[in-house]
């Protein structure tokens, strides 16, 4: 590394800066937009010099959206609350169901186990639109449409396969001998699962949970079709900013800033575990 020339260092710095700017610029721009009014946003040429305003955030928090055509009620804070509730509950349920299932698939080869695991995985690559129409009908018959329960159920299509398949890999990487050793020492299989398998797969479970959370948070189409306004998450709620009197870019920007904050904060906090978790499986021994 000492032999790296100044030229190479400079070029590397420029290349890295370009990449960072390319990826960070939209976030930076959105952040700026969230403090501007529609007029300054749409001004040509655009300018980074403007008088910042908190009116967008104020509108979101109070729920009163003032447009040229009058005042509109928006339920953004409720949407945000829904997103948090739906994502957290869905991931929690998927962990409760998925982690023991992943353990079973990892440790016990029973008849049809691979087929069941694959069927669960196939939920991930089936296009949601394909199942949406029949699902809507079933949900109406069952009285599940427009309920949190129904939404959380559907969100399992997103979370469960993800958690099952990622966590299964981590359980498979734990040496079976380590678990045998605990069994032989006189502990039940359940104690072995709790005291050996779970702690050792911990980083992997955390990583899978975080990914599932992000996927659940980003979901749009299930919530759009299966929930009415008061149950909708932010992804759907943001549609309200497309009003009859124009698109409210300022509010959209601040809504985006508010809605990516929880996932961003979580990802930053869990980054260390995430990297550890995602790379742990790759290095055996």
């Amino acid at each position, binding site marked *: 590394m000492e032999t790296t020339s100044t030229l190479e260092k400079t070029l590397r710095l420029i290349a890295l800066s370009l990449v960072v700017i390319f990826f960070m610029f939209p976030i930076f721009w959105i952040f700026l937009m969230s403090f501007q009014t529609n007029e300054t946003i749409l001004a040509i040429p655009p300018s980074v010099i403007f008088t910042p305003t908190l009116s967008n955030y104020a509108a979101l928090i109070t729920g009163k959206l003032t447009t040229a055509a009058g005042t509109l009620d928006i339920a953004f804070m409720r949407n945000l609350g829904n997103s948090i509730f739906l994502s957290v509950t869905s991931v929690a349920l998927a962990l409760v169901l998925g982690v023991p299932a992943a353990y079973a698939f990892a440790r016990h080869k029973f008849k049809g186990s691979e087929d069941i695991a694959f069927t669960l995985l196939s939920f991930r690559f089936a296009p949601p639109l394909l199942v949406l129409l029949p699902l809507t009908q079933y949900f109406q018959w069952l009285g599940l449409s427009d309920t949190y329960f129904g939404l959380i159920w559907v969100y399992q299509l997103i979370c469960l396969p993800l958690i099952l398949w990622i966590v299964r890999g981590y359980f498979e990487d734990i040496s079976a001998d380590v678990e045998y050793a605990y*069994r*032989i020492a*006189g502990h039940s299989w359940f104690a072995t699962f709790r005291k050996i398998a779970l702690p050792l797969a911990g980083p992997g479970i955390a990583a899978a949970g975080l990914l599932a959370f992000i996927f659940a948070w980003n979901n749009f189409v299930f919530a759009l079709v299966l929930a009415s306004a008061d149950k909708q998450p932010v992804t759907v709620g943001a549609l309200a900013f497309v009003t009859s009197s124009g698109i409210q870019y300022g509010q959209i920007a601040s809504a985006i800033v508010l809605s990516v904050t929880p996932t961003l904060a979580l990802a930053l906090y869990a980054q260390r575990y995430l990297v550890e978790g995602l790379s742990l499986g790759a290095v055996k021994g």
Partner: protein
Amino acid sequence: MTTLQLKNIVKRYKTNTVLDNLSLDVADGETLVLFGPSGAGKTVLLRLVAGVIDPEEGQILIGGEDVSDIDAEHRGIGMAFQNFALFPHMSAFDNIASPLTATNSTKDAISAGVHKVAKLLKIDHVLSHHPKALSNGQKQRTALARALAGSPPLLLLDDPLRNVDAKLRFEMRLELPRLLAAQGATVVYVTQDYKEAMALGDRIAVMSQGRIRQIGTPEDIYNTPADIEIARLFGDPTINLLDVTPKAGPEGIHVELSNVKVVLPGMPADVAGRACVIGLRPEAIAFTDAGAPGAIPVTVEAETPLNEKTVTLVLTARGREILVSRPAGTPGPVSGPAHIAVNGRAAFLFDKESGGLIRSAATPMTRNGEAA
């Protein structure tokens, strides 16, 4: 203390039969060594006994009781694994304590139990360390301590010295018999190292391809190997094996090595003319002078000191390689032509076709290679 009996055990993985109708009795307090190459089924056998896998056929009895319906955690077994299988997220203390915590002992009793066995194995100073921070030798001792901590009546040790360095292995080979005797447990010990098998076993069961080929005391196996393969496995340096066709003569049965007659006293007469393999331990061959009776001309190829002995590789006139062993420090040729003499009384004779033993050495050797 307890007994262990295996009756007609069959274990298959898909179409691959790993244990083939295997039966075995281990007496109360006995140390039985399972010896054999990798893939012989030794580890599978231990796991069957431990109860973490189940046999397709056959019965396992511990203390006379059929354990097929008893789960691993209730079989009262201590087991040490070849790869140590320590719990990486627990300290050495908690690792060793795991058999004790299972039985609802008090904190004090657990602590006392752990310290007692840790002291015995000289690891009481590293109890707070996690496995990651332990040396290989300490890991191995921790694994052993964990197996011993619950004072199980039946101990299964799966090649516990495999992954430790030679010096430590040598120390443990000396230390283990004392430890096991103090424990008073019935022990099944798996190894691939014949010296370990000889040093630790009350009896040795030689396994290959899912069957027990021979079972007996270390002396039995060394002096009366059931076939060529076992003779080859027991002994360092390896036994010399040469194709021969014994002939009958006025001196009795003899073979010709490089046209020199070597008489094999006490051989049955019917071996004459049969295709055989003669087995000569390197200790049964000595260098001699050119004019001595029975001197076979050879060329010295290489010499290797091996602790207390010196091993010389020589080539016969027909290009066959022979190992000759002599006590270290005694004079011998280092290169060029030389002559060897074969002690016909210490020769084994095997049937070439079946590999079975026809007759063992008339003068048995001790484990160290000297004539008894």
